[in-house]
């Protein structure tokens, strides 16, 4: 089978087509393998030479038809066969040498002579053309000889075909002409300095050769070109300098001009060079080079702007990649934050901030950070880590907070989670809790942590209070709650706001509440107690048939279970009306007791979700190998409420800030007002400009401010 494809001008396009026919060709060859005759070296070489010559002709622009796929295939197959023949007819080494020789021969006979006879700009053009041709030749010959790349070179640890080919050009052409080339380039640049138009594209192409010849290393560019370039530049300008001194006798001006000329003009080009430019240096973490670049560019006005914007892009791109990775593994929030905390702090603040404030899997970074802290600080979170490691991580977290713009959001989430840890006794280590609060205080100020510290103190006070309560009970034996009761009294201002529902307490608990209330009256008459049953826990004994198991549940769950002391069987509706809770709460409760790991209640029908038509029965047959089990009640998603609360607080904060500013300035322009407001509030959050505008308008309606009669963009404070 032979596919003859009509070949168009573009070689590379054609190569795509051959890939397919290649595969066919190989299969054919393999099938034919048993039948094949041994190719001897001479024959093989000759055959290859024909192909190579044909290629050279094409490159030289001679009238030569393009390769057909059959020809191509034959060339490849010849190599293949010659490499896979049994010894002594496996000619891999010889073919490898032949490959190299082909280039050497071509270069010495054709390429070099053509370069030698040209000069200056013409020589540069010829060089660019020859280099381009050379690359094509390397590509083609590598394809013919491809089989060598697959086994021979790896077995012998030899340089791959591509490298060999390019090295030939380097060793033969580049070493000879690079001096001339450099001079020609510099003279071109000088021409431009004198105000002539030069072919910039040519320059770029030539410089690219310097870089590509390095084949990954920048030595060629730096040593061969850059050094001379800079030397010459210095010489050029010192020549110029004397002229300038006559024209403008100001050293500063001269200095500026040199820097401007040298750096500004080429600034963007240099920065954008793919291999040595700013981006590449960043990518390869070349700190020394980066600092050199920084020093150089800092001398020119606005010189750092393009660098910093590239920097920003780079960090944002890197960070966004990281974020994307984290997004893909969103369940492992801990891991993602570790990576973030470990990021080198060479990033510019802005770029880092942009990255930090992108969300991951629907959660803001403020929330993620708070969750991360929670994971570290709660029991079962990071006990494997040493104290030092934990301290270190907390340190990093606090540092990271500096880059998060919604600090108030973080504070609120942190507070919510801290409350849970404190109230449900889930905190792993008191020391660490206090330690992070100290760090946060140092970084964000006392106001940031005052509520949280209040919470921690409250708990200590509550313990004291409890012991007084117990004393009171022992002194008044007639008053007894009937159950072991521990009450934690919290100061409202410090703790997050909780909705208190009118849960219908079971009779046993009602008594407890009464007793405590009486006790509390003896202590102080000026305070109002609001009971938050959603935060309580109960230990109940479940008297199951197999054995009694102690259940650790929330007050809500306990209230639900105690209903079954009075009836064996209850419907969803009955439970809901008896408890006086909302559908959402009831569903959550019943789910935790009948559809989760521990089925204390039997649900009918036995589906996985709760529906208002279900009925429930006490599961007398329940048992577990443990004597005491905790039945978790998954918390409600607080996110929405937290965000609502924070938004409300922000509105007040913006109002207060505007009034404060206007009170002191009396008269202020709109934009100035917004700027100062943003600055004032920046410590806690980044206010939305529209939000500020809305608050200003509200304050106008409330007669705090008015617009100036003559200039509607100016506001006045109304005393």
């Amino acid at each position: 089978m032979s596919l003859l494809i009509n070949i168009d001008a573009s070689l590379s396009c054609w190569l795509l087509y051959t890939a397919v026919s290649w595969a066919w060709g190989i299969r054919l060859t393999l099938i034919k393998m048993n039948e094949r005759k041994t190719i001897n070296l001479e024959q093989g070489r000759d055959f290859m030479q024909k192909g190579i010559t044909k290629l050279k002709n094409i490159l030289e622009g001679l009238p030569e038809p393009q390769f057909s796929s059959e020809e191509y295939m034959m060339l490849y197959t010849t190599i293949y066969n010659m490499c896979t023949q049994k010894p002594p007819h496996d000619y891999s080494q010889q073919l490898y040498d032949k490959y190299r020789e082909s280039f050497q021969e071509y270069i010495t006979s054709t390429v070099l002579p053509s370069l030698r006879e040209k000069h200056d700009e013409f020589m540069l053009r010829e060089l660019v053309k020859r280099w381009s041709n050379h690359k094509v030749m390397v590509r083609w010959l590598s394809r013919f000889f491809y089989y060598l790349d697959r086994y021979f070179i790896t077995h012998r640890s030899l340089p791959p075909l591509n490298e060999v080919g390019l090295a030939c050009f380097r060793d033969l052409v580049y070493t000879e002409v690079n001096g001339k080339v450099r001079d020609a380039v510099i003279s071109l640049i000088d021409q431009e300095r004198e105000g002539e138009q030069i072919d910039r594209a040519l320059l770029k192409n030539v410089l690219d050769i310097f870089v590509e010849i390095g084949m990954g290393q920048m030595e060629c560019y730096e040593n061969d070109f850059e050094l001379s370039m800079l030397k010459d530049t210095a010489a050029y300008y010192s020549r110029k300098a004397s002229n300038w001194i006559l024209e403008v006798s100001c050293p500063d001006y001269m200095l500026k001009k040199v820097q401007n000329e040298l750096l500004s003009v080429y600034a963007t080009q240099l920065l954008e060079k793919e291999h040595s430019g700013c981006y590449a240096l960043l990518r390869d973490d070349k700190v020394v080079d980066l600092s050199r670049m920084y020093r150089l560019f800092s001398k020119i006005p606005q010189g750092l702007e393009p660098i910093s914007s590239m920097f920003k892009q780079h960090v944002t791109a890197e960070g966004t990649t990281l974020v994307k990775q984290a997004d893909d593994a969103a369940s492992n929030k801990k891991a993602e934050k570790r990576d973030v905390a470990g990021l080198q702090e060479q990033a510019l603040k802005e770029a880092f901030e942009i990255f930090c404030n992108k969300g991951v899997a629907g959660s803001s970074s403020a929330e993620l950070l708070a969750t991360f802290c929670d994971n570290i600080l709660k029991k079962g979170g990071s006990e494997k880590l040493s104290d030092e490691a934990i301290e270190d991580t907390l340190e990093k977290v606090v540092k990271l907070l500096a880059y998060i713009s919604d600090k108030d959001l973080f504070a609120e989430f942190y507070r919510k989670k801290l409350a849970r840890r404190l109230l449900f006794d889930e905190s792993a280590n008191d020391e660490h809790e206090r330690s992070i609060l100290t760090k946060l205080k140092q970084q964000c100020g006392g106001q940031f942590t005052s509520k949280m510290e209040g919470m921690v103190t409250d708990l200590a006070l509550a313990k004291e209070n409890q012991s007084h309560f117990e004393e009171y009970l022992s002194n008044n034996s007639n008053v007894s709650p009937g159950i072991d009761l521990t009450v934690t009294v919290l100061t409202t201002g410090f703790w997050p706001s909780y909705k208190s529902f009118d849960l219908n307490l079971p009779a046993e608990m009602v008594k407890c509440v009464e007793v405590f209330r009486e006790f509390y009256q003896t202590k102080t008459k000026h305070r109002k107690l609001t009971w938050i049953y959603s935060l309580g826990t109960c230990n109940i004994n479940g008297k199951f048939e197999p054995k009694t198991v102690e259940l650790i549940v929330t007050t809500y769950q306990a209230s639900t279970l105690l209903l079954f002391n009075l009836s064996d069987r209850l419907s969803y509706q009955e439970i809901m009306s008896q408890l006086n809770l909302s559908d959402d709460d009831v569903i959550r409760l019943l789910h935790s007791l009948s559809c989760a790991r521990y089925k204390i209640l039997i649900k009918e029908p036995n589906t996985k979700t709760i529906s208002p038509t279900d009925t429930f029965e006490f599961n007398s047959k329940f048992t577990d190998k443990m004597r005491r089990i905790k039945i978790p009640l998954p918390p409600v998603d607080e996110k929405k409420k937290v965000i609502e609360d924070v938004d409300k607080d922000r509105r007040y904060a913006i109002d207060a800030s505007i009034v404060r500013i206007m009170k002191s300035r009396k008269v202020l322009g709109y934009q100035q007002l917004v700027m100062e407001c943003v600055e004032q509030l920046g410590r806690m959050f980044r206010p939305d400009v529209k939000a500020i505008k809305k608050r200003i308008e509200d304050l106008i309606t409330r007669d705090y401010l008015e617009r100036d009669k003559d200039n509607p963009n100016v506001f006045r404070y109304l005393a």
Partner: protein
Amino acid sequence: MDLFRSASGKAATKELERIDQLFYSYSNESSGMIDPEGIEHLCSDLEVAHTDVRILMLAWKMHAEKQGYFTLEEWRKGLKALHADTIIKLKKALPDLENEVCRPSNYVEFYSYAFRYCLTEEKQKSIDIESICELLELVLGSQFPQQVDLFIQYLKTQIDYKVINMDQWMGFYRFCNEISFPDFNNYDEELAWPLILDNFVDWVKSKQI
């Protein structure tokens, strides 16, 4: 007794008498003011609809405080300034009144007066959207018909605002005068334009896409 009477001559006194008489022909006996019913009569005698902007202009001229009512003082002030002591003269004075109001120096005042005039409750500071739409049409409809049309459309479709306050009201007038229409090319939302206008411009632009 009357500042008016003591300060003027005989002809003037006659004029004032006629003005007063005219007042009493429309006023409500018990309240001593011209009430909405009286105003309706007045309008039919003047041959203008009582929703006509010229009545509002008349109220402005009188510095009338309460919507739908004219006191004697206000009546005197207005008609004296218009040199109208009969219905016919009052009617004839209306075109001149219109011109006077439409003079740029007066119009801003009239425009803001129109808003205040609609604040009927004691501590009221804003007007509901529907009334605003009517008022806009009445007051600005002839001068800036396209802007008014579009803005009314916007007000009726948006949900952020249920009422409009004085600042927003005045802002819109400034908007019509300063901003090129319908491209809004010179509108800069970074300036202190009321937020509702920022939103309005965004809304128009999104419709145009």
